[in-house]
């Protein structure tokens, strides 16, 4: 008899929980949607609100591609439920800069070619926007540590660091 445990499939609840109306404040706008409680903030943004700038990378809080700001603080939207973020002030990459007037970090990413495929970029920029606000990362070593929650599979770290440092240094000046 094999000692291997059988994979346990999800236990079905007694009844499927109904979706509930939920209002999220996103990029300064109130948006009401019907989501099931197990909908992550990331899935709510992408699948229900068509805000696809926020990316799904690992979906386990390891890569940072899903980084958004909640009340100005960076979080992994894949590890939060939409229902947990009711009445909070959420900012996604769509709420940072405009096509006419880029955020200084967005301009710096272009100037420094701080990407290859670009998939991690919205998360990198949201994370760096929060880093500037936190005011803790001043040196390259500190910025590397404080940006370690955002992985770049292409390995564009050198240019990402240059881009972020340019804006950090401009703030210091």
């Amino acid at each position, binding site marked *: 008899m094999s*000692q291997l445990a059988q994979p346990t499939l999800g236990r079905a609840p007694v009844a499927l929980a109904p979706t509930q109306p939920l209002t999220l404040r996103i990029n300064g706008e109130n948006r009401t949607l019907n989501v099931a409680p197990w909908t992550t903030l990331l899935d709510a943004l992408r699948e229900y609100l068509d805000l696809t700038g926020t990316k799904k990378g690992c979906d386990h809080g390891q890569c940072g591609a899903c980084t958004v700001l909640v009340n100005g603080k960076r979080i992994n939207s894949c590890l939060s439920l939409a229902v947990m973020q009711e009445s909070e002030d959420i900012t996604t990459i769509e709420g940072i800069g405009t096509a006419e007037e880029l955020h200084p970090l967005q301009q710096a990413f272009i100037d420094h070619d701080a990407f290859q495929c670009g998939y991690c970029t919205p998360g990198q920029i949201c994370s760096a926007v929060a880093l500037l606000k936190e005011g803790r*990362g001043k040196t390259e070593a500190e910025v590397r*540590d404080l940006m370690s929650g955002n992985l770049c599979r292409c390995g564009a770290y050198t240019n990402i660091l240059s881009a972020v440092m340019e804006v950090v240094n401009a703030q210091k000046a």
Partner: protein
Amino acid sequence: MNSFTYSPPTAVDAAVRERINRPDSAYIGGGTNLIDLMKENVAHPTHLIGLKKLPLAEIENLPDGGLRLGAMATNADTAWHPEVEKRYPLLNQAILAGATPQLRNMATNGGNLMQRTRCYYFYDLATPCNKREPGTGCSAIGGYNRIHAILGASEQCIATHPSDMCVALAALEAVVRVSSPQGERSISFANFHRLPGDRPELDNTLRPGELITALDLPKKGFAKNFTYLKLRDRSSYAFAVVSVAAALELDGDIITDARLALGGVAHKPWRKAEAEQLLIGKPATLVTFRQAAAELLAGAEGHAHNAFKIELAKRAIVRALKQATEMDYVLDTNAFQNSNP
């Protein structure tokens, strides 16, 4: 992830009543570990009790000179709280050594204590695991066990507790305050997490339904001579291979009080009174440090891929104690406290 219902009660007594009435429910703080476990199908509660509306996010001074950390204060807000930075810099260092800014902004103090092991087999539903499915066996024993325990393990389980914050809380002798329908009680940090023994599915000594409401730090913060030394496979965003929380009080070069706790080596932060006694009253020298390190590692047993951690832990202890001795901490509010010296 299975389907579930969600409710966010606004009072502690309502939350604990709901938890008792729904045995298949779970509390959710920041969700950084629980939601991941649910996505992996390791955890499958059918009802989540959201804690964020409870009034448990305060950090406040206690009349006895200690500091109360609300269970729902985030790890980031706790690490950067002025009182923590000034009076408990060891805790600041330990928190900042763990996870990422994003995760620390979500993860709560109570949740940090409640996070589960990162043992690969615990997460892998295709393999036996006594912690996940009691009685099925331990795949880490005889498997790949680099991140596993060298102290206090059992034949049932060699998982480690993954927290950095908890290692500092153990050294600082924090007290865990919990609520249940029977009222409130306090649990010393040493008695909060448990060793696996023959019940590896139990990580801690909480009774059914009990909710962590706060962590109380005693007045003594060892704010002058301390170190949190974390050794890991990359310089940021990795769990500890071995970590050391070292805290000393010195009178000249004589050690008058000492705390020493290890992370990454056991099912709970590892402390031993005998090791600390070997430091107290002695000169702060490498000889003294090596004696304490040997005592703290006494009885350590390695497996195929983690036996190196025994010697690594001893050397880490000596280095941490040396750093703590040479340190003379004064808070520089302009400097980022680098968590990885």
